[in-house]
């Protein structure tokens, strides 16, 4: 089985699971008392944030490994992870407002997770724009790796900034129900969704990586 086919199979599996998540979330998970049906978007929103974070961390890791080993496969992986991460960030950033509007009457809130993901989104876009502007593969890989490492170093500062800002201006915590205090069924759906999104990440990145292998002079 080629890598592309394997990737496609994993993605398909992930999509099937995703359908399962939807079914479970809509029909087999209790409705949250305070927020009603709109709360169910949480089962997509939170795992999307998790996938974005995962994608970004792996871009950072792959960047370090590329500079150490000079193996272009790490660079290709980083590029694939960045593209997939951007997609997940978009999912998270669109489900956020969709959730916030019915609950809070406002499309956007500067809550910790939305803000952090917005930053990751900007970093991803910058990374992809840089890649797009360098035609030569070796230079592109090297510069992307440097930017990737810098971005990874920035993330703790983003979290710290958001944390310090929030202690100044306490945000409503409705958008961040913490996992342990969730009742069993909701927790189960959430965990299943985390698992599904991870599968989707693996599937998408595998396919993108396999595509990248085909045209190594375009990348």
């Amino acid at each position, binding site marked *: 089985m080629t890598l592309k086919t394997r990737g496609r199979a994993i993605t398909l599996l992930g999509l099937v699971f995703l359908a399962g998540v939807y079914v479970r979330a809509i029909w087999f998970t209790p409705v949250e008392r305070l927020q009603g049906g709109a709360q169910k978007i949480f089962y997509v929103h939170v795992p999307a944030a998790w996938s974005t974070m995962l994608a970004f961390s792996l871009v950072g890791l792959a960047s370090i490994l590329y500079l150490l080993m000079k193996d272009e496969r790490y660079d290709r992986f980083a590029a694939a992870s960045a593209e997939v991460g951007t997609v997940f960030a978009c999912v998270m950033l669109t489900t956020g407002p969709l959730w916030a509007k019915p609950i809070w009457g406002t499309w956007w809130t500067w809550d910790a997770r939305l803000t952090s993901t917005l930053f990751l989104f900007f970093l991803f876009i910058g990374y992809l724009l840089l890649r797009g502007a360098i035609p*030569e593969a*070796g230079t592109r890989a090297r510069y992307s790796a440097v930017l990737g490492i810098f971005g990874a170093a920035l993330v703790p500062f983003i979290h710290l900034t958001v944390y310090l800002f929030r202690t100044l201006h306490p945000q409503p915590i409705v958008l961040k129900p913490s996992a342990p205090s969730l009742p069993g069924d909701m927790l189960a759906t959430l965990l299943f969704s985390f698992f599904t999104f991870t599968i989707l990440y693996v599937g998408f990145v595998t396919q993108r990586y396999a595509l990248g292998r085909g045209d190594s002079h375009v990348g």
Partner: protein
Amino acid sequence: MLWADGVRHRFGGVPALDDVSFTLPAGHTLALFGPNGSGKTTLLKVLAGLIKPSLGHAGVQGGRGAIGWIGHQSLLYGQLTVRENLRFWGSLYRVRTPVLDARIASLTARVDLREQLDRRVGTLSRGQTQRAAIARALIHDPSVLLLDEPFTGLDRVAASQLTALVKEFAGAGEGRATILVTHNVEEGTELATDVAVLKTGRLVEFMPRNARTAGQIGARYRELVS
């Protein structure tokens, strides 16, 4: 002394240098000819340490501090005077101040730029700028000279002045190993003790010049590249 050993280099997917190997002892001047895109500049950059080759090794005896580089750009700062430029570059190459000032004086005299020492480089003519570039390249008394098409954009007079200077500084008595990349077969041959031809990254010819004339070398070159 400088050498290349099995140097291969690719830019993206394109091979720029293909198994280049040679040695050039001190006192020799190598004229390197080749069509556009044959890898001449890449080879010089590999020797200078600007590019790390995909495979193989190349280098000069004495490392970076022993290299004098002259390209078609002057590598000088237009807003600074000739003297300031020479002081700056000399300082970077660790030439001590008393030696530096003496060398500035003697070099600018040899390249006929004494009058221009305190003029900004941006106000000099192209010929004068290239002569200043030579002074810059020699400020640290390098044992290797790498010249990448230094005659570009020079008129006849300036070009022959430059040729005379290169002959003087790269001459056998000075003990330097010199590579001159040029399109101009006449000028190249006049200065060379050895001649080489690069074609699509391969060194297809490397021979001592002996007594051959520019005409003979030119003919051999045309033979090789067609």
